């Protein structure tokens, strides 16, 4: 239930993966959160002379390791493919989602980038349809690719647009 199924829905088309820079950006984010926590835990362990305190940095490191694994799994799970009439977005590690969004249903497209994404030259492309539940979001695209994708989508969206 992963690449096989996705491939079946996509009709054999290859999934495009996210830029490796996205993984770097996520790792930076992880480091920014867990690094300081680890240092604090280390300092506490050195100052406080309770045997339980020695375990603190180890626990923090373990949790950070798990978070890293989860984040890596998420990064690897993302994928998208542009078909003739619709866009397929695959995401999720534990809860797999395969969304099929027809170009004709797109209402508008957002390109957003947070501070860390910007530092890595990345952007997120999000498609909006009239349905609130539509969750076609592609993060971690290289800025130029994101803009190109947006323009392509806008073009086909206009060509195939249908009303409500």
């Amino acid at each position, binding site marked *: 239930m992963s690449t096989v199924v996705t491939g079946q829905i996509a009709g054999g088309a290859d999934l495009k993966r996210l830029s490796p820079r996205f993984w770097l950006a996520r790792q930076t984010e992880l480091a920014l959160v867990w690094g300081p926590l680890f240092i604090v835990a280390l300092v506490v362990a050195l100052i406080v002379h309770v045997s339980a305190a020695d375990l603190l940095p180890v626990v923090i490191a373990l949790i950070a390791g798990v978070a890293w694994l989860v984040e890596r799994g998420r990064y690897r799970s993302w994928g998208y493919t542009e078909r003739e009439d619709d866009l397929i977005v695959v995401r999720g590690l534990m809860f797999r989602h395969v969304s099929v969004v027809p170009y004709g249903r797109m209402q508008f497209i957002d390109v957003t980038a947070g501070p860390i994404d910007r530092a890595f030259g990345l952007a997120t492309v999000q498609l909006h349809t009239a349905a609130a539940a539509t969750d*076609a979001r592609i993060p971690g695209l290289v800025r130029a690719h994101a803009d190109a994708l947006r323009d392509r989508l806008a073009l086909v969206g206009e060509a195939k647009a249908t009303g409500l």
Partner: protein
Amino acid sequence: MSASPPPFQAAVPLEVGETWRRLHPLSPIVRFGRVLIGVLVIAVPSIAEQPGLHRDAGLPISLIIYAGLLALGGVGGFISWMVTRWRIADGNLQIETGFIRRQSLRIPLARIQAVDVIAPLSGRFLGLAEVRVVSAGRGAEHGRLAYLTAAQAPIVRARLLALAHGLEVSTPEPDALPLLHVQNGLLLPALLMRSQVLAPILIAVAAVAAIAAAPVVGAGALGSAVTVLVISGLGVARAFNEDFDFAISEAGDGVRLDRGLLQRRHETIPYGRIQAVRVVEPFFWRALGWARLEVDVARQSVSRETDRDAQQVARTLIPVASRDQALWLLARVMPDAYPDPPPGAGPPSRARLKAPLSFHFLAAWFGQRYVYARTGRVQRSTIIVPLVKVQSVRLKSGPLQRGFHVATVDVDTAGRRWQASARCRDEEEAVTMVRHISERARLSRRVPPPRPANPVPVPAAG
């Protein structure tokens, strides 16, 4: 604030043109009627309780305060009435309002989808009604003309509709073909027979019986059952109030609903706005062969309009009817839709462990024009989504579902109440469903949806 309505423009024939006109002068009273009653409820007893000590020194202070508040409210209401005006010109319905922050609303007549007339209770006493304009598009504004006289409102409605369809201004409202009328004598027992009312009654009866055996437990159960009963009783009263004297009829542009005990509503649901229909069959109704139809319409913008009431849209297509009648009505709204699963629409039997409660009715299937999803254990509900309205299709599978080799297929529409969710499908089948549904949805978008066929006689009740 005068007591009797002054002779306003009602007598003058309402010409549609460039002239700006105001709403009815009594509008603020209806609009802020609830606040007014609230103030009176607080004020009158507290003034009546005042001891006559201050009589010599003039009026009691509290009376002055309340009178001041009322005067302030009156002035505010008067100003809001003064600065609000509307006209139909340049292909727009234009509404201007706001004293400090001026707001100008322009609703293109061509984009009007429905014009509703709503008469709240206080408005009915004063002979006033509201005209509410629903227009198409995301973020579209919804115009409210609150309030006009009850005589004016239908005229304005007819003119707006005529202009919206590019007809002569004086074209009367198109005739509606009456489809079904719900007898109030049927509505009340039907509402009472829903399990959320009957279950607490049964528990209460059981609790009374149990008091003899175990007083503490019985009394406790009785107490909570009574609480639940009161809540569900309020729900029944509200539903009865909303769907009282329910009549549904069919006009060229959509279905018309007339309903309401205290607040009368005259609404139109355009066919094009219907995103999904749900057939609901509560437990006790199934034995009697009754069903209810609910409708999901395209999402309303929740923009500046903070009025809770303005966001209420018709949600019931028919509050109660025999199943045959409900299916007949369904066919009027969604031709060729049939909400009973073909063999093989159920999930694989191994899903019984994954969804032990809902497994009983769980089913999903699709045809050339609709996607169907059925669920429920006590209350059976079937959601029908036209393929034309499908916005996106999604396959979901969680870790537990993967263990059972099942997956969920969600079909999203622009409605805001439901999505057709085919739960616990076999993985292979789910993949096929996603492919076929998105393919058929794509094809159906190319072909314009067929108009409903000519009326067929209503099947007899029961």
